[in-house]
């Protein structure tokens, strides 16, 4: 899957969690939890969404890699 496709999937999942979130406007190294005001339940729901949509396993130990936009897309590109 291309990076653009992955980004689209992330945006779709986030729409159900934080409807006002503007993922595209984030800087690559910005912490999404701060920028999009995601609490731990929101972040878990993002991980669940990625798990279900992309069929990938995301161990808890890997969560910190997903905290920035670049980190998240790099991680997904390597896994999906």
């Amino acid at each position, binding site marked *: 899957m291309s990076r653009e496709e992955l980004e689209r999937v992330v945006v*779709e999942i986030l729409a159900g969690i934080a*409807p006002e979130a503007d993922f595209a406007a984030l800087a690559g190294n910005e912490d999404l939890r701060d920028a999009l*005001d995601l*609490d*731990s339940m929101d972040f878990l729901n993002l991980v669940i969404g990625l*798990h279900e949509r992309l069929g990938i396993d*995301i161990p*808890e130990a890997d969560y910190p890699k997903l905290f920035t936009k670049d980190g998240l897309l790099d991680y997904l590109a390597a896994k999906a």
Partner: protein
Amino acid sequence: MALFRMPSLGADMEAGTLVEWLVKPGDVVERGRVVAVVETQKGAIEVECFEEGVVEELLVPLGRKVPVGTPLARIRAPGEPETAPAAPAVPPARAAPPASEPAGAPAPPAPAPAAAAAEPAPAAAPPAAPGPKATPAARRRALELGVPLARVRGTGPEGAITVADVEAAAGAAPAAPAAPPPPAGPAAAERIAAPAVRRGFDPVEMRKAIAAAMSRAKREIPHYYLETVVAMHRALAFLEERNRDRPPPERLLPATLLLKATARALAKTPELNGFWLEGGFRPGPGIHLGWAIALRGGGLVAPAIHDVDRLSLDALMAALRDLVQRARTGGLRSSELSDATLTVTSLGERGAEAVWPVIYPPQVAIVGFGRIVTRPWVDEEGGLVARPVVRVTLAGDHRASDGHLGSRFLAEIEDLLQRPEAL
């Protein structure tokens, strides 16, 4: 003959607007069935009926705002003979009485309907009419997609409309992400033929509700405050181990351990679990923990999870996820807003380190958990180590309990969090 009344959904609620009937005259209702949707300052709430019998008459038309306690429907108990329809019981519009009744207690009697007949229903308001039968999830989906339920054919039990029916009617792919709320166009309005239905809540009204409850708390409740710092290394290690081989939907958040420990500690100090009413303490009927949920756009609700002390950690996590989802999209139930016997506020992983919360009347205590942070800690052998810790606070109503009891309660939470496998 029983009257189903506008419920009090918390100490701060004075009135509600009936926006949807989910039953019609002749329907059989059982205890706990969601029979109506009421718009409150906290958004649209699905109201359960705690009477049993046959709906004889709907007394309040859609779109009407009525004070707490106003009869909404007459329900004939099983075996009772039918009666002739009574005069309409909608009282004239007037200042709503203050909601002095406790959450969870029977609603106060409605104002006498003496002059009721004098006030005609607004011309625009249609007669009380039931909406089509549909599951709550289907109703939300219909609202999201702007599909009038009247146009959807139900294939569920007794012809109830399901999510799949709604999506089929909308021609929407089931996997489509949740759409933003549609503008209040003709389609949305047609759905239930009532004004002012929307998903979510009005931030201005929500602010008023919070202001009323918190002002009352600070005016009436002599708070005392306690704090304990609790080592979390065992609890976090337990979670890490437990979540390691589980797919994301089955993973637990630390909040489940904090809630369960609170519930178990409350079982040992029941003096903190209940209400201050009419000059005395009344114990709660169970351990129903209100969970404070921050809403996007500002505002806060603290719906209850029932019988937390008896739920497994998995069941508690599922309940928590479901509750947060429904709090944010609309669809909380009346019992969830009125039943909490103690509230827990947890600031989560990006919050401040500690919170000294304000009690939600008429409850008699509230528990606060700060962010889990790594701090220097002296371990059992006297060595200095870095440990994840959480600051646990209690605000207690000094009319109902003292710091000694509160201290025992916090000590019990601390002890339980050192033995997470027993939770």
